[in-house]
């Protein structure tokens, strides 16, 4: 018995002190990368309207996003809540078809009908701007749209 105990004492435990460090490193990596945006916002982060009847957008690769809101740089782009951002620059509604066609080239042809355009517009934007975009989208047959809204009571 005494021999057995001796042997057990002699076994060195694996030092796991560095494990937390590794895991923390992973943790920080994920925390940092997930907050990164794909596009830089040229407009101020739109204050989305809230709605109760929202649907989640699936298949992120099939979603193209159009931002509408107030420019961060009013000296260059002018004031008002009706600036349209496509990719990472301020554009006009006339450039929407080109933007959609460009986005279509990145997905396979079979998936084109499932593409959705997400409009992220500020609460104070005007419906006129949204309508302009909508008419342009209809011209290029991008018929599925989603008015981005945060889930809430809706009132």
């Amino acid at each position, binding site marked *: 018995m005494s021999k057995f105990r001796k042997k057990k004492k002699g076994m060195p435990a694996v030092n796991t002190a560095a494990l937390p460090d590794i895991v923390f490193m992973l943790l920080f990596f994920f925390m940092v990368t997930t907050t990164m945006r794909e596009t830089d916002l040229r407009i101020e982060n739109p204050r989305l*309207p809230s709605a109760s009847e929202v649907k989640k957008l699936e298949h992120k690769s099939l979603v193209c996003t159009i931002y509408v809101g107030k420019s961060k740089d009013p000296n260059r782009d002018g004031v008002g809540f009706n600036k349209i951002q496509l990719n990472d620059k301020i554009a006009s509604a006339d450039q929407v078809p080109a933007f959609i066609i460009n986005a279509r080239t990145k997905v396979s042809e079979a998936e084109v009908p499932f593409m959705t355009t997400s409009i992220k517009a500020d609460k104070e934007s005007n419906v006129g701007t949204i309508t302009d975009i909508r008419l342009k989208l*209809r011209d290029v047959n991008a018929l*599925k749209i*989603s008015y981005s809204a945060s889930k809430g009571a809706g009132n």
Partner: protein
Amino acid sequence: MARRENPEINAGSMADIAFLLLIFFLVTTTMNVDSGVSKKLSEKPPADYVPPIIKEKNIFVVLINRNNELLVEEQRMDVKDLKDAAIDFIDNGGGVGNAEEDGTPGKACDYCEGERSESSSDHPNKAIISVQSDRGTEYGTYIKVQNELLRAYTDLRNRLSMKRYGMSFDALEESYDGDKTNEALRKKVEDIKTSYPQIISDAEPTS
């Protein structure tokens, strides 16, 4: 000698804590998906397109002016009353519905619980909601109105689904999403959807 006896602090569970945090962040960050009010635009009409003639009573006109005020069927209304007004309109069932695709004539709405008044819509599949907004209307108000109208449809669908299948439409859709191959569920979802089709038209804004 005494220093050597000092027990080391057991850091083994530290890894567990860190893993827990890691998993928490992994899960929460992927949950943050884009959500919104989805709409399907109508296709661009051909140049020689003649719009069908629709009876006045089958159209529910919602006007939003540039001061974000609502005019519903020529009466001023608050956004909070819009849902009930829309439900009354859609669920009226005063006449017969559209003829079906195979040519059988339309039937009266046997699941409607509305007043069946002569001056309101004939059938849910004929009831058209037309939203007309001004170019200067705030987007937030516009979405609120769209949301209220969608809520009206959701309420009606839930009620009908409850009556026919004993579960709300939301639950029905959810279980169908979890099991896309289930033919019986698909039929149920389709049935409710065609019973109360969402017909919301966006008229071009007045300037």
